[in-house]
């Protein structure tokens, strides 16, 4: 092992910024990060062992205790639950002979839940040793169990398990274009860098990652900041449950995205770019690397790109299971080899980002749009959309509809149009923008997708009338509590309290006062949290409480107070030890 780690460290130039990459390799080889490896790495990278320990404990895909040789994770997002995740994972556990969350005694396999893996249009999905598997059914599970028990190496498994479909159902302005291999770079230099920035400004392009900041301004501030180095980062962390459009863009239009990054780099004056690819998209890694190699060969990357005296290259960095790393400053921390904890702002990344240099972080789709704008000009793009939301938006549609997949629409499209196109009937409501977005009811389908009305990063989850609002809220509340980075009090403690409070209500232990307590807690988390995660973590409750107060009310007992914990269950140990089961050995949850 010592030899292996020395070599790893060497391959990574002994750079602490590469810590995630190094740990990924150790985890893949030993199924955990041994203590000795931490000690050795600390010395070789010249960082403290606690920094390494923190990174291991922070990211879901690193472990201090061995996982199985086959580490199987099953996505437990709401769309997975809708296709019977609970039953299927139990079936899996039973067939494998392992408890959920644990490693089988022979060390061959481990099984656990994981947050949305971005395969919501091909649920039930999961990961085996980091590689995506889709369309899990009982019969496919049986086959996997067989492979595992035979200890068949992953590369000998049927390719079918790992098939990930693009499911592009409706293309528009951007998806109709073919992948760009040099045309945008040429157009940019032909037109001039500042002139191209002006075109991007004219296009009205706003960030597609959710916040909707005007892209041209971000680039301008970054360019204007005095510095010897600047960085361009593509945010491909795509962790918002229900979003998978970046996965498809990277699979089918990677060249355009890289081209967009290159154009942006030329404009802001960066020579180094990164694409932060979420760990769940490991299956895309080799393909993307190959495209980068091709682009270097074609002089679209590297030194003196297309003879314009401009150097730029892109490195792919993989995440390791942490939704918070989609937040741009947490992402930067992660790229620096640390836990993904959002920074204090100001200063913003455009002033002080990666290694404290000016950095522009943009979404995958933003770069796709920018590359096309560089070719076709700003007006081409701005001709579509609404006053404040120009161009088109790519949506990831999943849930209760006939045709889940990728849909591109100009901004301003109504929810109803989308529902008609994707074949959704008997609809209860739609979760727009993922758990951190808004739940809208079937009274509101004339509302428009646009920054002026319903802003979204692209997640669109349809629920039909057979679904229960509280199940949805329950799932989302657990998601946020699991993904809170823990830095600030309101979110760290608040999301856990919220999870407990929702559990209490869903389990039928809520009483009149609990709704007031719930709302008060939500406001606290929303108003006092440090970053966007905490500030939106209460949205599932707040947006549904506003629309369906009666559903919450119906779950409450007609009493004014309910104990905060399960009284009778709390006597279980004592009953067992005292060997009693008489009436006095039990407690009713509320007084008869």
């Amino acid at each position, binding site marked *: 092992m010592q030899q292996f780690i020395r070599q790893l460290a060497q391959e990574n130039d002994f750079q602490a910024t590469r810590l995630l990459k190094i740990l990924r390799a150790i985890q893949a080889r030993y199924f955990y990060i041994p203590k000795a490896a931490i000690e050795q790495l600390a010395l070789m990278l010249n960082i*403290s062992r*606690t920094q390494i320990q*923190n990174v291991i*404990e922070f990211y879901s895909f690193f472990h201090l205790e061995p996982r199985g040789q086959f580490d199987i994770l099953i996505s437990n997002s709401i769309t997975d639950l809708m296709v019977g995740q609970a039953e299927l994972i139990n079936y899996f556990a039973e067939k494998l002979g392992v408890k959920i969350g644990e490693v089988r005694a022979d060390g061959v396999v481990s099984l656990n839940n994981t947050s949305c893996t971005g395969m919501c249009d091909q649920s039930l999905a999961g990961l085996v040793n980091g590689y995506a598997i889709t369309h899990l059914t009982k019969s496919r599970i049986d086959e996997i169990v067989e492979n595992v028990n035979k200890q068949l190496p992953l590369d000998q498994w049927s390719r079918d398990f790992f098939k990930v479909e693009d499911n592009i159902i409706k293309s528009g302005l951007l998806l109709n274009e073919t992948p760009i291999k040099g045309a945008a770079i040429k157009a940019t230099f032909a037109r001039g860098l500042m002139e191209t920035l002006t075109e991007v400004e004219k296009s009205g392009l706003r960030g597609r990652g959710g916040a909707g900041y005007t892209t041209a301004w971000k680039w301008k501030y970054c360019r204007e900041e005095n510095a010897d180095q600047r960085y361009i980062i593509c945010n491909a962390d795509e962790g918002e449950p229900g979003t998978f459009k970046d996965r498809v863009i990277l699979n089918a239009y990677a060249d355009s995205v890289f081209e967009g990054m290159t154009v942006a780099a030329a404009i802001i004056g960066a020579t180094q770019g990164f694409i932060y690819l979420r760990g769940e998209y490991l299956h895309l890694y080799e393909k993307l690397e190959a495209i980068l190699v091709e682009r270097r060969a074609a002089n679209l990357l590297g030194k003196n790109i297309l003879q314009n005296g401009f150097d730029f290259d892109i490195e792919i960095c993989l995440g390791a299971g942490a939704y918070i790393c989609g937040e741009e400053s947490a992402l930067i921390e992660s790229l620096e080899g640390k836990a993904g904890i959002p920074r204090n702002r100001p200063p913003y990344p455009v002033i002080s980002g990666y290694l404290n240099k000016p950095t522009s972080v943009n979404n995958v789709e933003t770069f796709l749009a920018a590359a096309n704008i560089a070719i076709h000009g700003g007006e081409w793009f701005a001709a579509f959309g609404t006053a404040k939301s120009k161009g088109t938006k790519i949506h990831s549609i999943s849930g209760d509809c006939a045709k889940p997949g990728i849909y591109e629409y100009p901004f301003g499209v109504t929810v109803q149009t989308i529902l008609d196109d994707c074949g959704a009937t008997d609809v209860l409501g739609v979760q727009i923008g993922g758990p951190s977005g808004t739940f809208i009811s079937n009274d509101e389908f004339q509302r428009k997708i646009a920054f002026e009305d319903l802003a979204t990063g692209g997640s669109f989850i349809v629920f039909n009338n057979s679904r229960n609002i509280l199940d949805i809220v329950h799932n989302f509340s657990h998601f946020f509590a699991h993904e809170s980075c*823990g830095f600030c009090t309101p979110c760290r403690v608040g999301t*856990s309290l919220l999870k407990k409070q929702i559990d209490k209500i869903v389990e039928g232990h809520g009483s009149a006062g609990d709704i007031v307590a719930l709302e008060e807690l939500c406001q606290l988390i929303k108003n*006092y949290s440090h970053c966007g995660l905490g500030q939106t973590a209460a949205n599932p409750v707040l947006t549904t409480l506003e629309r369906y107060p009666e559903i919450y009310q119906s779950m409450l007992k007609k009493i004014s107070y309910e104990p905060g914990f399960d009284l009778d269950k709390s006597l279980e140990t004592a009953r067992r030890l005292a060997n009693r089961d008489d009436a006095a050995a039990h407690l009713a949850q509320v007084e008869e």
Partner: protein
Amino acid sequence: MNKSIVIDGKNVPFEDGQTIMQAATAAGIYIPHLCHNPDFTPHGSCKLCTVKVNGRNCSACTFPASEGQNITNVTQELNDDREKITQMLFVEGNHFCPSCEKTGNCNLQAVAYHLGMTDNHFPHFFENREVDASHPDVMIDHNRCIFCTLCVRASQQVDGKDVFAISGRGIDKRLVVNSESGLLKDSDLEATDCAAHICPTGAILIKRTGYKVPIGQRIYDHSQIDTVTLANEGASHDE
């Protein structure tokens, strides 16, 4: 030259580069805080110092003062919410003040007193947390750690060591010690280190000193944290 901000209707001068907290402290205005200590780079995690800047919530300890800021600090709404944030810290850990050596000298407790907190409001987590009494002179009671990172910063910035760190994600966060065994006795911490004395709660304690000052005669038994803080932090940073 004379730039100023307004805090609760009062004009407060500031210099470029100062945070709202620094400007307020220098002007004799107390903004509740736990993770902030003027001797170290601000952290911004406890959120007790939240003030409204032109209507928007900001952490005073990290947010730069700038011209045109109209700030509210002491309002019923802010103090009620600060109280709830404090209550969150109490239920997250295990704070049994009657059996804590720090009682009466504890900033967490003092902030609670200041905000008029009489109960913990939220359901308790009652998590199992450990005590590390391995070191001959210093002990850690993890039950009382609020993850303010003051010990982390003190060790790095004053002691020139790197004894403490916060590890883990979300509610599983914990304080860890930089030694191969993970125990304090195997770290290079000494009882004279700043990091051993900086903890605002009773999570890091110097052994055999806990009851030198009897309960009833401790800092916050008779003085409120606002006066105490302004006397300490205001003085050292006024020129």
